């Protein structure tokens, strides 16, 4: 139904994102597209959805050549896209976001009642539950994801593109989404699905196309291809190292949290009498549906805000009132969930992003030593296999996964005594994810206390020594990570159906 023929794309800055890509997508199927970070997946989808124009090549739908030159034109062709980075407006309501550009009118005005009804109708039709009147910025990421999907479906959509839609969803939410997608396919939609998670691809797709460095490296029906083969097509060679989980190295907790309470304005951030203890060498995993208080917990532990009650101690000594700077000087490191908002600056160079914070170590008298900084960064680029033009390129020129590696390298490289990692591998290809996970484990092994927050239960179960489940700002379970612990066992706690604290 959709045919890509000889599609190439060179960005104005000279990056060749796609070269001579050609394959077809059958109508009424879910078609997966896999590839490592920066392989060109998003670029190809942006071309289909009218956000970018191809430098060469053509696309046809049902045999008709098409050349969508704006999202509007693509929508007219029945193409809707859920973007990897949401295209939502924080200060608008859910309804306004979903219907932006196609509002029902009454005279010159937006017909608010009708708009609201339409959103409720959409939500019911696709069983995606949203509050039509909520301001978007107050929603959890998962809820925003639903809004983004509803938005894509709100225009008479026949081709739905999902660019890593599950990266921010918890497993129950992912399952729910998959059921919807299957239903959508059955109702005749064609779905293009991008994911780094092979399990998901296997569960959903009928066909998979793999991209490597902008070229098609494989295209096969799911039934005719093994996971290993996909991994090989994506990365050139397969290989996942087995992880040996670290063990706590002392009985003394490095970080102790008692009765921690945060009465934030945003309900998603609230905390209610949290108790935690993290020992050196231990990775404490935090599970929970997005918006269960994780963000508040991270804010308080990183000194971004002060709790309303309770205490935090490092090595038994209270750090009440300490701000981020003070905690960092004690040995805090933090890999944030939102890498571009908090983790770095697109405008600054890779060197500057990689060494910000540590820059005071690179001083000669009052001056910084740029050479030494660049050299260190070169080392990071090599060690973390960052695909980039060089250490002086702006961070914005990197694909998201590669940017994530630079930011991780900075945080891991500061010799932390307490490391908070928040969704460390979200949106990252398998090889890079393995690499980052290895680094986390290695840090723990060297005696760092690690707090791991992840929406990816497999990741939590792979890395954590213990897992604590948050629900509505409270700890509902604290479980040792033994072989009996499975995603299925965690599910009820995460949804607040069971409590075992």
């Amino acid at each position: 139904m959709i045919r890509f023929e000889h599609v190439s794309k060179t960005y104005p800055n000279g990056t060749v994102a796609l070269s001579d890509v050609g394959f077809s997508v059958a109508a009424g199927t879910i078609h997966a597209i896999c590839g490592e970070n920066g392989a060109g997946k998003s670029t190809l989808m942006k071309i289909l959805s009218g956000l970018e124009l191809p430098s060469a090549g053509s696309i046809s739908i049902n045999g008709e050549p098409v050349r969508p030159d704006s999202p509007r034109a693509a929508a007219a062709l029945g193409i809707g896209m859920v973007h990897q980075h949401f295209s939502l407006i924080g200060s608008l309501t859910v309804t306004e976001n979903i219907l932006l550009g196609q509002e029902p009118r009454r005279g010159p005005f937006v017909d608010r009642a009708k708009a609201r009804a339409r959103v409720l109708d959409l939500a019911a039709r696709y069983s995606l539950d949203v509050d039509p009147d909520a301001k978007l910025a107050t929603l959890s990421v998962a809820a925003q994801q639903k809004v983004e999907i509803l938005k894509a479906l709100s225009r008479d959509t026949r081709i739905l593109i999902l660019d890593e839609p599950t990266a921010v969803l918890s497993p129950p939410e992912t399952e729910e989404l998959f059921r919807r997608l299957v239903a959508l396919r059955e109702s005749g939609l064609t779905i293009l699905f991008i994911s780094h998670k092979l399990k998901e691809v296997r569960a959903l797709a009928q066909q998979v196309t793999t991209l490597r460095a902008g070229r098609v490296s494989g295209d096969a029906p799911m039934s005719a291809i093994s996971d290993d083969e996909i991994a090989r097509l994506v990365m050139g060679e397969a290989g996942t190292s087995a992880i040996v989980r670290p063990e706590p190295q002392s009985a003394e907790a490095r970080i102790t949290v008692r009765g921690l309470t945060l009465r934030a304005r945003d309900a998603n951030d609230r905390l209610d009498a949290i108790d935690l203890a993290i020992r050196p060498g231990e990775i404490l995993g935090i599970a929970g549906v997005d918006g269960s208080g994780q963000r508040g917990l991270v804010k308080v532990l990183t000194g971004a805000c002060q709790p309303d009650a309770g205490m935090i101690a490092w090595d038994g000594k209270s750090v009440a009132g300490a701000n981020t700077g003070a905690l960092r000087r004690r040995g805090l490191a933090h890999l944030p969930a939102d890498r571009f908002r908090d983790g770095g600056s697109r405008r600054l160079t890779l060197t500057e992003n990689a060494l910000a914070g540590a820059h005071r170590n690179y001083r000669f008298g009052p001056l910084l030593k740029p050479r030494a900084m660049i050299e260190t960064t070169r080392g990071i680029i090599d060690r973390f296999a960052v695909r980039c033009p060089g250490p002086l390129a702006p961070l914005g020129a990197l694909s998201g996964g590669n940017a994530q590696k630079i930011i991780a390298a900075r945080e891991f490289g500061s010799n932390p005594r307490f490391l908070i990692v928040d969704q460390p591998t979200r949106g990252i290809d398998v090889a890079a994810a393995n690499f980052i996970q290895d680094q986390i484990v290695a840090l723990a092994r060297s005696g760092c206390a690690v707090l791991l927050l992840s929406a990816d239960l497999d990741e939590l179960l792979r890395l954590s020594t213990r897992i604590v489940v948050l629900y509505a700002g409270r700890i509902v379970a604290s479980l040792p990570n033994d072989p009996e612990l499975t995603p299925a066992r965690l599910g009820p706690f995460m949804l607040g159906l069971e409590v075992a604290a």
Partner: protein
Amino acid sequence: MIDLLGLVPAILRVSTPLILAGLGVHVSSRAGVLNIGIEGMMLAGALAGVVISALTQNAWLGLVAALLAGAVLAALLSVAIHLLRADLVLSGIALNMAALAGTTLALFALTGDKGISSSLPSLTLPMVRLPLIDDIPILGPLLSGHNVLTYAGLLAVPLVAILVNRTPLGLAMRAVGENPEAAAATGVPVLRVQVTALLISGLFAGAAGAFLSMGYVSWFSQNMTAGRGFIALAADVMGFGYAWGTMAAALLLGTTEAITLSLQGFGVPSELLQAIPYLVPVLAMVIHARRRKRREAH
């Protein structure tokens, strides 16, 4: 000595250009374009109104010309920032320079005088007596009998609020102003929305200029806006993104100005009096920001 009867109309007069221009800044700011060139647009509007009303002997046509002149300059700014992709702030500054030079030049070409259009028989916009209110004893003279643009400015506040909050265009403006990439990905025609907002901004600027040259006085004189555009920029920022807020800020600015004007001659050195209208808004902003900060802390 300060008589309320005289002061209220004075406040309205002083505030009117600030409200009109402030709304202009507000509209374009909501769409993400800080209209530094508002001063120049006002100046162009002031001149166009005078010239056309003199030529046609019709004040309304003069007003229309003023609005259009503001919009034309807004279109020029749009060409600079959208077509040529020049720096927004610098383009605004350049537009102000160009408008000052251009209006002087045009005035010279038309009248042989660089300073004032007094040789043109231009008209003024009428004062409006509000039918019923006019008869109320004290309130009547306070609320009635102002320039038509004063009422237009006040009336425009809810209209702008509705435009921004209730119409598809307003929705698109807010989306574009907050996150142009996301809006573009959704299919909002970012360019068209910004150009429209800028043109509306130009219309308001033209009206503000017309008020000066066809309401306050009945002529155009060189650089007669005297920095009011910049005060309007401040009014918009002080309004925290709301049309009503912009109006409140403009009224605050106008009130301090009007009061200090009528305080002249009481022995306070005039320079110090002239500083007050610039200090009070800062104070007001600090108090407001402090209250907000305290509120947010809880």
